[in-house]
């Protein structure tokens, strides 16, 4: 308890002192899971204007508001037709247990949306429970095989991840059990550090050829996504379009990870809000907006976040951390097990330890039993239903009969930073910082 009158160092708050002393004791950086904990400008810094004298709303409970979206119709013969514009992000079997992957598949399928594999390949359970499954092609190529490629509904070439643009995957030895090791062709119990670059292509010109190969192997049926971490989003999006992507997935710095260095999570990449605007600008300048679909992820939590992302120009969003939380990640259960990890509900980022108290991010059979895939699937379905209802509520309030008719004109910013990043006016003004109208 802080004594009255004591003044904390602004440069050295207690958390910083703790980290300096931990580093002095252990001599190694901190590894952890989930996404950035620092405050960054985000969708909470925007609000919708709603209907007014010059705009009229739709009836909240009577008039239809479409939520469906088609992803990947640029080149693919069989694009994905999803009922809602909220997809489940790539999370590996290995990082998550089989029950968690099963639950994600059940919840997403019941809502007519897609799930995504991760670094480590496709499991039978995941394919079985997922109506629409996106198969990731990562630098490690763990478990990659053409049979699974053909079983997938879409293919996502992962160039980067919002939590760590420029970094490869990491899965510590305690999570590499016999099954995970077998799928990855690695010895059990080693600290698995995946490559950060693809083994057989460098740069967008090569990637274009790689995509051609993937299409040849899958008869040009599957939509090809390119996933990038939010960094140079304007150029990355333009280059992804040039390389032949059907869909660009843009993952902001708030996006989670199973494990990586804390310094990487907190200090590399840019917030989702700023990255999204840059990506939409690139698509519009290439006249490819809505032709190459844009999925944005990284810190999406509510229907309001979804609505704001769509209003800024995204075609769909993807959720990872929030989906885990719907399965009880950081829930106020099994408190003693959180304490053993030196944390408590609401603060836990210990996915890397494999000791997940709620059985989501673990390979321990006893802990895994704490997550019933059916119940988890039901919880995820409820959560996705809530997001969808919130999204429709906001769309109708702005007079839209389709959620993708939301537009930047419906938004204003509450902070100067958010106004500059999202390029919408500061509330009550017509001022967009850094933006000059052309003469």
């Amino acid at each position, binding site marked *: 308890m802080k004594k009255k009158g004591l003044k904390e160092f602004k440069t050295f708050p207690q958390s910083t002192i703790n980290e300096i002393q931990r580093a002095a004791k252990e001599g190694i950086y901190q590894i952890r899971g989930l996404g950035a904990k620092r405050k960054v400008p985000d969708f909470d810094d925007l609000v919708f204007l709603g209907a007014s004298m010059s705009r009229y709303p739709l009836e909240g409970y009577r008039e239809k508001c479409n939520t469906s979206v088609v992803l990947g119709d640029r080149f693919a013969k069989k694009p994905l037709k999803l009922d809602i514009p909220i997809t489940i992000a790539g999370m590996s079997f290995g990082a998550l247990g089989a029950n968690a992957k099963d639950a994600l598949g059940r919840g997403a399928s019941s809502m007519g949306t897609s799930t995504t594999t991760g670094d480590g390949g496709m499991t039978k359970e995941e394919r079985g429970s997922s109506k629409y499954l996106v198969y990731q092609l990562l630098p490690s190529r763990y478990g990659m095989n*053409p049979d699974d490629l053909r079983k997938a509904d879409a293919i996502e070439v992962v160039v980067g991840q919002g939590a760590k643009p420029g970094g490869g995957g990491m899965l510590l030895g305690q999570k590499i059990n016999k099954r995970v090791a077998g799928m990855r062709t*690695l010895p059990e119990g080693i*600290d698995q550090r995946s490559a950060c670059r693809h*083994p*057989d*292509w460098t740069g967008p010109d*090569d990637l274009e050829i790689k995509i051609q*190969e993937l299409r*040849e*192997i899958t008869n040009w049926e599957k939509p090809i996504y390119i996933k990038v971490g939010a960094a140079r989003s304007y150029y990355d999006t333009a280059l992804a379009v040039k390389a032949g992507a059907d869909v660009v997935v843009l993952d902001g710095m708030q996006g989670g990870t199973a494990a990586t260095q804390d310094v990487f999570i907190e200090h590399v990449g840019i917030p989702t809000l700023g990255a999204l605007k840059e990506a939409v600008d690139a698509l519009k300048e290439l006249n490819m907006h809505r032709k190459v679909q844009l999925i944005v992820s990284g810190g999406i939590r509510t229907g309001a976040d979804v609505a704001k992302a769509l209003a800024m120009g995204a075609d769909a969003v993807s959720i990872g951390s929030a989906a885990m939380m719907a399965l009880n990640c950081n829930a106020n259960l099994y408190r003693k097990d959180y304490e053993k990890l030196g944390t408590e509900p609401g603060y836990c980022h210990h996915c890397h330890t494999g000791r997940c108290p709620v059985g989501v991010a673990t390979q321990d059979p006893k802990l895994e039993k704490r997550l019933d895939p059916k119940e988890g699937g039901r919880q995820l379905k409820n959560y996705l239903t809530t997001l969808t209802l919130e999204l429709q509520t906001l769309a109708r309030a702005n007079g839209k009969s389709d959620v993708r008719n939301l537009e930047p004109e419906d938004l204003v910013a509450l902070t100067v930073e958010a106004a500059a990043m999202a390029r919408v006016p500061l509330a009550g003004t017509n001022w967009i910082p850094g933006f000059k109208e052309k003469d």
Partner: protein
Amino acid sequence: MNFDLNKKKLTDINKYLQNIDRKSNVRKFKIENPSGHHAICAGLKDDIDVTINGHTGYYCAGMNQKASVTVNGNVGTGVAENMMSGKVFVKGNASQSAGATGHGGNLVIEGDASSRCGISMKGINIIVKGSVGHMSAFMAQKGNLIIFGDADEDLGDSIYEAKIFVKGKVKSLGADCVEKKMDEKSINELKKIFKELNISENPQNFKRYGSARKLYNFKIDNAGAY
């Protein structure tokens, strides 16, 4: 059956070869005028024999399953990448990342292979009768990379359980890669591979390299090794 890439689209040829009619007895095919096309014979999945007369571009025979593909020419980046099974023979030289991430089967390159040959290989056998470029067998997980000539810098960097055999000189070894004893088991393994591929070579002329396994679990004392 012969295909001519000057007359027929690559996609049509690949589709035909990927969906062979099992009732047909035609199992041998030739492709003329490859002219550096990419992804020729990608995704084959049946026990067929394809000969390509000329040079190919990237990812020739990528993700091959069961098929035998012979290239009478040079190949571009990523020949037989992620191959699962079957055989790929290159009569000329290979560009970068030959046999990258391959899970199984045999890749035989008569000439040289450029950098990153066998990168992240996962069970494939790669035989290079010439020399290999730098960073070959980088992060190689399983399988055998057999080099008749020399190996450039950083051979086997961050290698896992793959084995490397070199008859010529090695310019330098990468992190955690060490020379190992050419034991009876390894000699027999090479003999078996050579016999299967009709290669006349004495396994005892090769040196063996593999992982020191010091970097399998991150220890701060080893940070300087990277």
